[in-house]
């Protein structure tokens, strides 16, 4: 299969039929360390369309949270955005100043953080933590109106109204997680980034939270980036999946095709190692063979673990190209550049 470079996502423009809300072009986020830069996100490009959920998967440390925080321009020191564009409805977030960013945060992009357990301020009541997001962006509101709005929101994510007056420590983990979901949609944002919203929860609560997310998406029509490693949950919730490996996007595909016929060798290993109830499968990924993120090898990022590695893989970085309709992969097996 051969594909021309113009299909690369970096140069692809929205087709016009589907509204693209977020475009990330060649994003690079590095963490400065005494022994060199950690390339946590390296040349990542993708787009999010209106009303879709895109799953972002990959093993721990591959750069999912860093990507999410970069989109919110909240990369924590010593990290920094080194290059790339983050276009929200055409406006480049990388170029905005502090004040402009504050206006966009939460009104346009909100976050369901990875550590929902510790993401609520322990000394403030839930109503005040949701209320301050509303009032910061919409100005002071009459008490009654504010209360009605927050109560409606809590009901929507399936929380009882008594939560309104409570402090975070009085809530269970699942309830805190749902407070975070409620908080994320309070201003009706264009895009919600949910960073592993169900990890650290037990299986039953995971389901409930997953359903809550789906409900929210269906009712509000927001776009969502759903980060996680749980392929099962992904299969249920998302429209498309982006697979990350060591700071790079290696595959981006609609969820159905990806599960049916994963293209990238890493995705194949990932899918194969999903545990099933009927049979126990050994984890195919070999540990310890991954390179140091500070010093990536020339060529493909996956070469050390790849069963199909060739000489070309050790020399040329495979670009993320569209090889089938709506399917992009970064692997020399599928094209000849």
């Amino acid at each position, binding site marked *: 299969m051969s594909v021309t470079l113009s299909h690369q996502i970096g140069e692809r423009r929205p087709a016009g039929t589907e509204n693209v809300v977020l475009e990330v072009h060649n994003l690079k986020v590095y963490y400065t360390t005494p022994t060199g830069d950690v390339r946590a996100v390296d040349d990542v490009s993708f787009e999010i369309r209106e009303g879709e959920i895109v799953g972002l998967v990959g093993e721990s440390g591959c750069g999912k949270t860093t990507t999410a925080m970069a989109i*919110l321009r*909240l990369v924590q020191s010593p990290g920094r955005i080194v290059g790339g564009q983050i276009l929200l409805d055409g406006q480049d977030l990388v170029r905005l100043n502090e004040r402009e960013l504050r206006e966009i945060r939460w*009104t346009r992009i909100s976050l369901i953080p990875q550590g929902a357990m510790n993401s609520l301020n322990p*000394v403030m009541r839930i109503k005040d933590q949701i209320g301050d997001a509303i009032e*910061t962006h919409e100005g002071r509101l009459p008490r009654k109106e504010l209360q009605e709005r927050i109560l409606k929101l809590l009901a929507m994510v399936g929380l009882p109204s008594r939560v309104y007056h409570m*402090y975070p*420590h009085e809530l269970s983990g699942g309830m805190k997680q749902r407070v975070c979901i409620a908080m994320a949609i309070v201003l009706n944002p264009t895009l919600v980034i949910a960073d592993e919203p169900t990890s650290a929860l037990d299986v039953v609560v995971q389901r409930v939270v997953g359903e809550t997310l789906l409900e929210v998406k269906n009712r509000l029509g927001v776009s969502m980036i759903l980060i996680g490693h749980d392929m099962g949950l992904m299969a249920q919730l998302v429209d498309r999946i982006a697979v990350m490996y060591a700071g790079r996007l290696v595959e981006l595909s609609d969820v159905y095709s990806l599960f049916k016929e994963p293209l990238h060798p890493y995705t194949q290993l990932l899918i194969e190692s999903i545990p099933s109830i009927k049979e126990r499968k050994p984890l195919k990924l070999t540990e310890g063979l991954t390179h140091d993120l500070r010093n990536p090898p020339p060529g493909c990022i996956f070469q050390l673990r790849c069963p199909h590695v060739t000489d070309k893989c050790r020399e040329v970085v495979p670009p993320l190209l569209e090889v089938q309709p709506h399917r992009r992969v970064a692997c020399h097996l599928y094209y000849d550049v």
Partner: protein
Amino acid sequence: MAGLTPRYVLRRLGMFVLTVWLGATIIFIIPRLAPGDPVAAMVSRLMAQAGYIENSAEIIAAWRARFGLDGPIWVQYLAYLRNMVMLDMGYSLSSFPSQVDEMIADALPWTVGLLSVSTLLSFLIGNTIGALMGWPRVPAWIRALLPTTLTFTSIPFFMLGILLVYVFAYELRWFPPTGAYGRGLSPGWNWPFIKSLAQHGVLPVMSIVVTSMGFWALGMRGMIITNQGEDYMILAEAKGLRPSRVFLQYGIRNSILPQVTALALSLGGIAGGSTLVEYIFAYPGMGYLLYQGIVNTDYTLIQGIVFMLILGTATAVLILDLLLPILDPRISYER
């Protein structure tokens, strides 16, 4: 969430009584374990001054009876407890026939005035400096300058006190060197007295504040920095809140809690006075009184002051227990 229940208040009061009783018992026992007899020591000191005193044995016996030191130990103990409850601390050994409680009543207001003002000032200034030092949004040059304000923390405060007296009292003559108020003024709510009180207070307050605010600043800085990495701080920023709100409501509000506990304890310790500062500035407070008590081996006076210290600390802890659950919702009135 449970509010302040009578049960909780009663239990805290019980703890308070228990603490004070234990403290009182210890200060009853300790002098009696020490070798030597304070009354005999005093009489022999008088003899040394006056040459020879007739019937010294009878005098000693009479005084022992006067101070209640002649009965069996448990009788002494019960009498002692009863007296302490009524804040009757007996006669001073060194300045008989002054009553210890009267001496304390004279000294306490000065000390409380001086130390509460300086402790609160130090708390406010120190925590502000510390918070600014730890907050990344504060311009770097300000954060670089702030630590210089803490230079004096490493100087013992009596040294700073002496320095201040020399510069501001003797060289510049801006403030009076010693005392709590000017000679010839009578304490009361009148302008000349209050003005004089404030003038006399400046140097001692300054020496305490300047040397102790570093303690608050470093504690606060550490708390603020630890707090930075908390997930709720990142979420607060993601919400697009104004930096001032993130700083106050999310940063300071969470960092101040351990500082408040420390503040309560230092306020509780005020009753003991600040001996060195009061000595240097000849301030007529508890610290000065304690100094006199120690110099004159005045057991009853020392006992009285230490008892006040215990009472003050226990009261501070009691108030803290009643207030903390309001400041920190995670602490409930249940426990």
